[in-house]
């Protein structure tokens, strides 16, 4: 009786392993069945949705014009304490890697911020990267922003490599992500 049970146990185990191996083989994806990198979506592995915004001075920036460079897109507002806290670290990392082509696009959620306070914050902190004004909230909507800050690390191929929702981001995290994107390790 005991022997019979053992035989059933071994038989069932073998059957499960053979069937599951067959399932692995059957489920090998056909080329193009995964859409990462092809579709624009605000998620890791997808192409970063393109946008065009202006600074307060009227200078226009489009994300697509920075293809070939690592980009950090950061959504922020002047009333948001973690947004304010992480800006100095972003500025230091930007200064350190600017010559290597690193770009920071700080998108101010102007539709829910006071433009005067946002600009004076940028001047007080001597932020040298462009502060883009999302006056209608259309880019925040495109990136499905539900809370601030939100940061998207976009590699030179235009693919999102990391998304950090909330903050403040630590300086080490910023440095590591930028180095990874520059080295093509991400």
């Amino acid at each position, binding site marked *: 009786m005991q022997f019979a049970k053992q035989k059933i146990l071994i038989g069932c185990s073998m059957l*499960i392993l053979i069937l599951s191996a067959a399932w*692995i083989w059957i489920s090998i994806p056909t080329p193009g069945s995964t859409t990462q990198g092809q579709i*624009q979506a605000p998620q890791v592995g997808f192409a970063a949705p393109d946008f065009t915004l202006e600074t307060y001075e009227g200078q226009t920036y489009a994300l697509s014009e920075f293809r070939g460079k690592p980009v950090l897109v950061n959504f922020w507002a002047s009333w948001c304490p973690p947004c304010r806290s992480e800006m100095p670290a972003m500025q230091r990392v930007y200064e350190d890697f600017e010559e290597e082509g690193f770009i920071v696009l700080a998108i101010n959620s102007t539709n829910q911020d006071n433009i005067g306070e946002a600009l004076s914050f940028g001047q007080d902190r001597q932020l040298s990267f462009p502060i883009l004004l999302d006056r209608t909230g259309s880019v925040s909507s495109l990136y499905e922003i539900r809370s601030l800050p939100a940061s998207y690390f976009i590699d030179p191929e235009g693919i999102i490599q990391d998304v950090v929702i909330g903050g403040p981001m630590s300086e080490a*995290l910023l440095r590591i992500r930028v180095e990874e994107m520059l080295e093509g390790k991400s």
Partner: protein
Amino acid sequence: MFPTLQVGPLSIQVPGLVLLLGLWLGLTVSERRSRQRGENPNYLYTLLLITLLAGFLGARLSYAVTYPDAFSANLLSLISLNPGLLDLSAGIYIAAGAATIFIYRKKLPLWSTLDSITPILAILAIALGVSHLASGSAFGKPTGLPFGIQLWGAVRHPTQIYEIILGCLVFTVIWLIDKTTWSQIPGNFFLTFIALTALSRLFLEAYRGDSFLFANGIRSAQLYAWILLAICLLVIVVRNWKQPSTEEAAS
């Protein structure tokens, strides 16, 4: 998808919150199971605390060792709560090592202890599915099926919901098994859970749209799940080979 919950100025990460709730619920269920079996559940809390602490510290230190320049430029980053600064695989190895040392030093029976923590793992597996649903990660491949969900620019298999359903099924099966003679042999309860979880991952992965593929197109998670399944089944067969059946043991 609800990756964050805005409560006044606070932005709460829903996936993390769901995992914490799962951990608490799992611990409660495990404690109740241990009490029903006449075991002392107190060591479960210590074991869990040591495992989590060792895992977190190990993951952070391993990350800092990998990127010493970035951390030396800003030492405060060592205590940052940012989960992006964790080496997950190193954290898992160190947590497992710490748990093993605790079990060995307290002279706890290995297989019975693993059986005791199984409900925690089973409920965490369901919570993981819910956290994936909240964040929109672990998403499915595009589908034309009527129950597909619009996500990341396409109608996709709702793999996060499949994951929750499979987790609930596995939990139900092990809950039923726990009442049978099968789980009276120490380790069978835990090994059955791991085998079923590996099997469900192997099935689920076929519908994922974010799989890492080997050069021959095989999904890496499926291969690892198959290897884990094979090891579990082998250990089950070997451990039950010379075990007398419960009826025989009783007579």
